[in-house]
């Protein structure tokens, strides 16, 4: 049954000014970026060594973080949406935590867990794994902040499914995994795409956790946001140029996602 749609209402007069202010507030920084961009030297600045290296590394790490988020996040979303167990509220709170934790604090926390002198440090060293100061560490830090976006978006969609099609598939003899693969996933595809895009964009823009946990080394852990931060202190024009790249990528993601923020199937 299609939900009843409300007739669109006019904007209450009292909301006009604040809403307009909000739009201006959000638009001005972006306009400023475009206005102050060194358009004439943009090409050469972005093709330069550090910028290109940072961009490629950023793409590599963010896609890695997305992959890890999918691997861990889809099952977790299922767990939260489709099962009932004691401590579920706690798990949900855990998933939400990276969203409210200051990223630098997240980085500090990752160090205390996975750092050389962290809780798991010696154990990881035993099997020859070091995470701080490595690209893998940067991926881990980005996954930490991006995972919640995927899980929460997907969980909402999974919980919203009415299950009829899955039941039918099951009665026709499909195994649990097949049902999931052929019926459930396609049903939540929009939400999965939206969650993935959000997680990826978040991972791409991550700074605090990455710089604290993985450090800063060109080619290994210096992602684009880190480069922007350092460039700002020496060459603000370069920082603006690099910021444009991140802005452009964010815009592409948002435009691709238009209208799909909420996980309605």
């Amino acid at each position: 049954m299609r939900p009843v749609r409300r007739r669109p209402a006019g904007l209450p007069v009292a909301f006009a000014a604040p809403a307009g202010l909000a739009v201006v507030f959000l638009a001005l920084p972006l306009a400023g970026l475009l206005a102050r961009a060194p358009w004439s030297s943009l090409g050469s600045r972005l093709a330069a060594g550090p910028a290109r290296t940072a961009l490629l590394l950023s793409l590599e790490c963010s896609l890695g973080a997305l992959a890890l988020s999918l691997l861990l996040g889809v099952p977790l979303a299922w767990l939260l949406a489709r099962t009932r167990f004691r401590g579920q509220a706690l798990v949900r709170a855990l998933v939400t935590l990276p969203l409210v934790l200051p990223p630098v604090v997240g980085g500090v926390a990752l160090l205390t867990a996975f750092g050389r002198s962290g809780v798991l440090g010696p154990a990881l060293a035993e099997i020859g794994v070091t995470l701080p100061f490595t690209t893998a560490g940067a991926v881990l830090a980005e996954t930490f902040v991006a995972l919640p976006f995927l899980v929460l978006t997907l969980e909402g969609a999974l919980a919203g499914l009415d299950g009829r099609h899955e039941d039918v598939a099951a009665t026709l003899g499909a195994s649990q995994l097949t049902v999931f693969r052929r019926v459930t996933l396609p049903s939540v595809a929009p939400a999965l795409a939206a969650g993935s895009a959000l997680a990826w964009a978040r991972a791409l823009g991550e700074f605090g956790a990455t710089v604290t946990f993985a450090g800063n080394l060109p080619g290994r852990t210096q992602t684009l946001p880190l480069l922007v931060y350092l460039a700002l202190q020496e060459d603000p024009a370069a920082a603006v140029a690099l910021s444009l790249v991140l802005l452009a990528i964010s815009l592409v993601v948002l435009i691709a996602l238009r209208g799909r923020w909420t996980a309605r199937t």
Partner: protein
Amino acid sequence: MKRAVGRQLAAAVLLAVAGCSTGSTGDGANAARVLTATSLAAAFGDIHDVSPETSSLSFAGSQALVAQVEQRAPGDVIATADTATMDRLSEAGRLASTPQIFATNRLAIVVAEGNPRRITGLADLARPGLIVVLAAPAVPAGRYAGQVLARARVHVRPSSLEENVGAVVTRVALGEADAGMVYVTDVANRRDVSRVDIPKAQNIVALYPIALLRDASHREAGRRFIGVVLSARGQQILHDHGFLPPPGRP
């Protein structure tokens, strides 16, 4: 081996704060706002305590401070860890007084407490498997470290280039890095790390200039603060923190 978790967490928070690059102490409405290089934090903190209501301090890496001034951040006095960053401001016409050298510093190798990896000098920093952290080349301490290592022909592969020198110490204090190159003053009064000296012949001399900013809104207070730094009292405090006197002074 049991670790002082509380101490570690405190050091970790320090790293976080250092990573955010500025911290400040605030007082009085007529206080001079002093932009201070990170390596001067402790010493200037004590100078500030002499008459707290006359100055408020703000710390960051020297290059970050200069960037702040260039972006018109409020400030009355600036003290950096090298003359190159100060020259940037001088050339841009942002200074109201000629910079005066008020202290000098040298580099040292910071290692974990007790020096478990038995580092004895610069050459050991190139040891394979050793995790060495330096300040980024844009930071004076990083630039100095690069000069020292190049002159000594030691090829170090740093694991991270930190945005300010305090963060280098914190990485070692946290146990995440085995060694780093910092100022002598950064390790002077710390009990959670140890120091390996770099011989004078291989070392640099870092010159610390201080100057009044052109856009200062508290000129008198600023001049007075500079006066205190250059006075016998100020020089004694700097000495207590491990700084060396400026050239030309005993």
